């Protein structure tokens, strides 16, 4: 049963990757953005399914780092500079939010 679940996941991921690579008639930058969107959905699956609150915090941290990379790719393939400003601001906010979540998990107040 476990092997079947493993095989189904592998076939699904390979099918999505090959379908994006072969059967979509869009430019290369949009394909790279779609691969990053697949990463977003994997992290969102962990946020939905996570057994404890700490799992959801980890997935939120990963999602914050992924958004920085997404902004960088959009800065290249749309040619607009201000996406990098969004990336820097998002990295800052994600770091502070993760530290606040860790403090909350530890069970202490914010002012210690």
């Amino acid at each position: 049963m476990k092997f079947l679940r493993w095989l189904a996941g592998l076939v699904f991921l390979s099918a999505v990757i090959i379908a994006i690579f072969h059967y979509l008639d869009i430019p290369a930058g949009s394909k790279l953005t779609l691969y990053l969107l697949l990463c977003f959905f994997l992290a969102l699956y962990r946020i939905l399914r996570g057994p404890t609150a700490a799992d959801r915090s980890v997935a939120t941290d990963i999602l914050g780092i992924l958004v920085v990379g997404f902004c960088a790719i959009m800065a290249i393939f749309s040619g607009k500079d201000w996406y990098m400003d969004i990336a820097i601001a998002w990295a800052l906010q994600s770091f502070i939010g993760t530290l606040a979540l860790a403090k909350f998990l530890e069970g202490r107040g914010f002012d210690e």
Partner: protein
Amino acid sequence: MNEVISLVFIVVGITFDLFGCLGLIRLPDLYNRLQASTKSVTLGTCSILFGVFLKFGFTAAGVKAILCIIFLLLTAPVAAHALARGAHKNGVKLWENSVCDKYSEDQDNL
């Protein structure tokens, strides 16, 4: 030529991101997931940002990309360490096949 090198860096970074998120949904335990995903996704995003720097050169956007790399490399391990510590104090169990737990041994000795 520069564009080709930057595209190679971006593809390598997206591959790292994909494998990091695969570890995030595949591995059995919070600490294993943290171990797999945080380092891999940080390195992949830094690779994407370095590709952006190679594309733009020393303009405003390129220098911002270098700043973002330095900031990510400084802050992502700190955030991961704080999350692991908070989760351990919150009482999240290890996987049943894990062999050692040095942190709780230290807490017992204190």
